[in-house]
């Protein structure tokens, strides 16, 4: 401690954001497992973003003569079906890549919404305590007591595109994909937000005893300011790791819903639905089933490994 001021040249300069992100990636490099996860996730991200740039067939175009072709078979025009075709003669590779767009878009959106709701409820329950906590935790526990799939089924069959409400919304000119997507988000939010809220509540119960919260209170800050500006940013560490894992679960959930024909409407190339559509052909369709299955597991695996590595890094130092 000095009474005189430290010369400015001794200051460590604040690194720009880009450099800091690069630095975190180099941290990841030390964990091979984490690196592998990051590569898997990045691969699908590039596929989803750049789908239009690759020389792919139209994912919706059907070709009657080429039903359930195996991988690497030739198309009539002399090109190759790299991963074969499905029961309607559509190119599996192209459907997978365009499908990654759908999967990532809706799963990320659903996770973000679930997180926003969960964090808000969690921070309220944790900071305000008392009745707020009782009510929020009770409602959360009610939703958590349903097996998640049952909860999804209840919501989707009652409010989905096939329900009377869904059909009314559809009649207003809203696209069926959007209606399905939104209702998927709602279902996933009900299943996920209580879990997020529980984590945030626990973190906040600890954080709110810190002196800087008392400091905010004694300078007369509003509870909303304390919750959003003073508390939530400090809970981000464990939440980032959890979000990574949770995104994986959401992808699986969306795939399962697609498989049960409760997901996005046909002919969208949803991975789960791709498996369901060819399921009836039994062994003949093994090629058409294995690729979407691998796509799902590779993306989820990537996210899980990434989460593990992030947790390991965050625990160090």
């Amino acid at each position, binding site marked *: 401690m000095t*009474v005189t001021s430290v010369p400015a040249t001794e200051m460590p300069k604040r690194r720009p954001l880009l450099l800091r992100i690069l630095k975190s990636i180099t941290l990841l490099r030390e964990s091979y497992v984490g690196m592998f996860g990051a590569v898997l996730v990045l691969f699908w991200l590039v596929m989803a973003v750049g789908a239009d740039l690759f020389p792919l067939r139209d994912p919706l175009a059907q070709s009657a003569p080429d039903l359930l072709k195996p991988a690497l078979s030739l198309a009539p025009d002399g090109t190759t079906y790299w991963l074969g075709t499905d029961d309607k003669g559509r190119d599996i590779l192209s459907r997978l890549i365009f499908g990654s767009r759908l999967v990532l878009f809706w799963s990320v959106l659903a996770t973000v919404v679930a997180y926003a709701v969960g964090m808000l409820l969690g921070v309220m329950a944790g900071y305000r305590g008392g009745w707020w906590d009782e009510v929020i935790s009770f409602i959360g526990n009610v939703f958590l007591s349903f097996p998640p799939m049952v909860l999804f089924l209840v919501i989707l069959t009652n409010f989905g595109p096939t329900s009377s409400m869904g059909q009314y919304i559809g009649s207003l000119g809203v696209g069926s994909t959007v209606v399905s997507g939104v209702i998927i988000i709602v279902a996933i939010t009900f299943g996920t937000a209580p879990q997020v809220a529980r984590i945030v509540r626990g973190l906040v119960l600890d954080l709110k005893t810190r*002196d800087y919260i008392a400091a905010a209170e*004694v300078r*007369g800050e509003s509870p909303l300011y304390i919750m959003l500006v003073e508390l939530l940013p400090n809970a981000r560490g464990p939440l980032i790791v959890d979000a990574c894992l949770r995104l994986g679960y959401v992808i699986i959930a969306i795939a399962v819903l697609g498989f049960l024909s409760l997901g996005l409407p046909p002919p969208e190339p949803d991975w789960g639905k791709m498996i369901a559509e060819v399921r009836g052909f039994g062994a003949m369709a093994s090629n058409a089933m294995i690729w979407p299955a691998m796509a799902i597991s590779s993306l989820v695996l990537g996210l899980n490994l990434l989460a593990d590595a992030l947790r390991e890094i965050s625990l160090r130092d």
Partner: protein
Amino acid sequence: MNAAQTPVLECKNVSISYFTRAGAIPAVYDFNLTVMPGEAVGIVGESGCGKSTVALAIMQYMGRNGAITGGEIKFMGRDMRTMSQEELRKIRGSQISMVYQEPMASLNPSLLIRTQLTEVLIVHEGISEDAAYKRAVEVLDAVRLPDPNRIMNSYPHQLSGGQQQRVVIAMALLSNPKLLLLDEPTTALDVTVEAGVVELIKDISKRFGTSMIYISHNLGLILETCNRICVMYSGQAVEVGEVKQVFDHMRHPYTRGLFSSIPLPGADRFSRPLVPIRGQLPLPRDRPKGCTFGPRCDFFEAARCDKPIAMLDIANDPGHQARCVRYNEIDWKRYRPKGLEAEPIIPGPPVLQIRNMKKYYEIRDNSIAAMISGTKSRFVKANEKIDFEAREGETVAIVGESGCGKSTFAKVLMGLEESSGGEVLVNGQEVGHLPVRKRPAGLISSLQIVFQNPFETLNPSHSVGSQIARVLRKFGVAKNRDEAERKTYELLDLVKLPREFADRKPRQLSGGQKQRIGIARAFGGEAAVVIADEPVSALDVSVQAAVTGLLTDIQRKKRTTLVFISHDLSVVRYLADRIVVMYLGRIMEQGTTDEVFSPPYHPYTEALLSAVPIADTSVTKRHIVLKGELPSPMNPPPGCPFQTRCPRKIGAICETEMPPNKDMGNGHMIMCHLPDDVLRAMEPVIKVGRHESEESNIAH
């Protein structure tokens, strides 16, 4: 060789490194220490100097990323580095044991004390459970725990902090170790409880012949407990010697700096202020090549001090060594860092008036038994009849141990709790029933607080500048962004930090720097009253001096009233104009600093004064160790709250009647049943004698 002459522990040129991603960090290097049988050696130094690393290395318990990279550690003549894991396991806990700072963390909360104590003997000595139980009871008795059989069948949470630490010490002594390592064993305890544990530690080497290494940041405690001392700085021992040699004839500028920055009796914040050591402890990887203290030393000489320096024997002083090439060139008699003298602050009119203030907490008991007996709700009297005044520019200290109600009082004043009765007036305005949300911005900014823990006082997610600016905007001191920025810089200037700090995140700041930001924030508006809740207790001594100096400076400039809450009487004596001593929610004594520190005393104040360790060999203290533990504020004793521990209790009246509040002259109030003549006839607790040498720490 004669067994009595074999050192229990011998560290020779030990170097210890931690391995991190950024490479090896040398935590300790070229460290030498010899501990003879029955000897107590104190290791003292500020945080980050490597003292705990040394303890871990002696236990050979470095964790995965630490290793001893050089030198040897000999225990009873054998190099510990050649021992197998099996041998080390046998030695740890039986031949060498360790007592840590947090007693609650050292005991397993889910096992009975008897299980934890007997286990040590059963594992190390293979004796039967009955025999182990008997031995454990004996040792509990030896550490002066009352009713050892009850303690044996308790869980850790059923014991108080002082009892827990005694159990931990008993556990360490169970198998009669040769060497006991104590790492800040009393830091987590209250002063009067600490005094009891310190007395026990002093007694251990006498009764058991155990050698001790006592690690502490508190020089006073080292003086009370140890024969020899090793002062560490930045990974090295800088001065070693007999305690008296080092305290009275220090030969290293760092040691001198340490002594100049602690408040010893005689220091005064106006006429003889403390002197912080300038600069900062270097990070291990930026250590200077030569003398590590060089950049902070007044005697740095370019050609000689910038190459590695060995420990040098001090001429004519056997056993005393210092790591300073210029030790015999410095005129130690005259070299005494001096602070800037300043005019005393003359207090103005009363700003804060507390009259008969009460704060009760209601405790609801929903058990069936409580419903039947009709005791469904009880009241905990956290504050009862609080009555005092603080004037403009004055520093009033509230002193007391945990549970005395000093933090509750702060909460009421800040508007985080409502008072249950009486008046709390700030500039004539009643605030006791005004929660912070109902207070106008002007009132909020005139009543601010500096928190205890520098590591929690700032939000880690936001930059320092934005946190100060937020306060300025909130208090209406700054109307727009530019003004907030300008005023933020002014506040950084006020607390003597560079303006560049505005862009930094709290984790880039040291503890003392964070505390300065906390002070800047409290003085952001026009603060009339600032509550400082133990603002320096978590800081290193050299930093403490800087922060207390800063508080005094700002107080002078702004004529702020400072309510200083503390348990540390040395700091209080140095800083406060007036002192309020609290015990279990009541004021036991209040008066000016001189009045409180000299007789007549309240018996509790007398015990508190005696409990404070003072790092000065010329000071003699009367020895008063309180019996028993602090009663719980939930369940206070009838009559005088202090009667359960009072060494001067006069009889039944103390147990039945609340003592009268007596004015001993000039508003020096003492709440006690003792007759006036007994109170007036008390001897002073602390006597400052004359030093044998001229180079005393107290300039006469």
